[in-house]
């Protein structure tokens, strides 16, 4: 019986192409993102940039990288956009079903285990690097998940191609007794550092502050880096004579000629007669 899910039909063809036809395997396109998470006294702050690239081209200058897993459990995703969105969507579904069947509010650790087990089954082929953060009845939690399925629990995390730039800011500014405003500004600075110093990250800054039974999503909290400074106002109006004329060619307008089929015209003539 036909089964759904992922399709592996082309694997044997690919193996033959590589071995016999010396086909060059295309390189995986490196994706660019800066995502950051920080734990503070009352909860968790998640931050992300908003640029989605496809090779050297910016595919979406203002996309959403922070996905909802549950009301107070959110996840920022780096890597292939389709993988992060669909993975977080599926785990959100599973978590909802689980919380309904157990009758308990979902825990961040449950979401972590579901994501980790799911990603490990695919050996890293599902390229989703996630920063999972949330507040449940046990308190605030923050985890990082690598595409192969390994996880870490840390007080501050950065992932994506801009993670080094963001981590530099986090290491300098983090202290374990931060309040909400300090944490928000630290995450903001970290994302800005990623946007400014990494080619793959850009656009606006998104922030998500999660506390006990409260969640605030600041979409595009900082848009200074996505506004073009030097842009001429539309429409373009050029004065006549502003460009030099190099060559002039004047062609006379031809009269419209009708091409009539010889045979048809003969038949018409005979009919008239």
């Amino acid at each position, binding site marked *: 019986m036909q089964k*759904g899910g992922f399709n592996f039909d082309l694997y044997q063809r690919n193996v033959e192409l590589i071995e016999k036809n010396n086909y060059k395997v295309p390189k995986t396109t490196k994706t660019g993102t800066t995502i950051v998470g920080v734990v503070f006294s009352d909860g968790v702050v998640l931050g992300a940039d908003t640029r989605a690239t496809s090779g050297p081209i910016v595919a979406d200058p203002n996309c959403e990288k922070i996905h909802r897993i549950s009301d107070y459990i959110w996840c920022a995703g780096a890597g292939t956009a389709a993988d992060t969105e669909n993975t977080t969507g599926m785990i959100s579904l599973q978590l909802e079903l689980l919380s309904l069947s157990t009758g308990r509010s979902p825990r961040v650790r449950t979401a972590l285990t579901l994501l980790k087990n799911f990603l490990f*089954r695919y050996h890293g082929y599902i390229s989703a690097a996630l920063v999972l953060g949330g507040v449940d009845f046990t308190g605030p939690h923050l985890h990082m998940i690598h595409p192969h399925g390994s996880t870490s629990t840390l007080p501050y995390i950065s992932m994506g191609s801009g993670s080094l730039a963001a981590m530099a800011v986090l290491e300098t500014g983090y202290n374990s007794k931060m309040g909400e405003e300090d944490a928000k500004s630290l995450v903001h600075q970290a994302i800005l550092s990623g946007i400014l110093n990494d080619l793959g990250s850009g656009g606006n800054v998104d922030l998500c502050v999660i506390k006990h039974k409260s969640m605030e999503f600041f979409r595009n909290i900082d848009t200074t880096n996505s506004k073009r400074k030097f842009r001429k106002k539309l429409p373009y109006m050029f004065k006549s004579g502003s460009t030099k004329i190099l060559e002039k060619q004047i062609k006379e307008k031809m009269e419209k000629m009708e091409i009539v089929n010889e045979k048809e015209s003969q038949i018409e003539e005979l009919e008239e007669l």
Partner: protein
Amino acid sequence: MDLSGLETEQKTLPIISYSSDFLENGLPNFKTQTLPKHPVEKMQINKQKNEREKQYNMLGKVFGSQYPLMLRLEEEIYNQPLRLPCLPSSYLSLEVFRGTDIEVEPEDLYNDPNNSLLIQPPVHQQMEQYLGMNDLK
């Protein structure tokens, strides 16, 4: 960590199974069954089966060997198709037994066979093939 999907060696000889309709399905060959499979595909095939075997082994050690035997019998009963060979059966009781009715897998979300672009051959033709009535004698 979930390592149950990793054992993958093919332990049976490839079986040649073909339909007599060569024009439609091509000449019979062993090749497609012996070619290597993607490691992720192997993991998908083996994972659930291995996990169930592990559970049965554990239950046998804890409750005695009779208990997993009873469970296996129940699973076999639920695993029987109740429709013609070419029509899909829902296997709902099997899903409830295994606990997969409340689980959501990529198999449920992506590439739904009901929406597949390949046209299935008509039921009569598939039944003739199943009963071996295809050959012209």
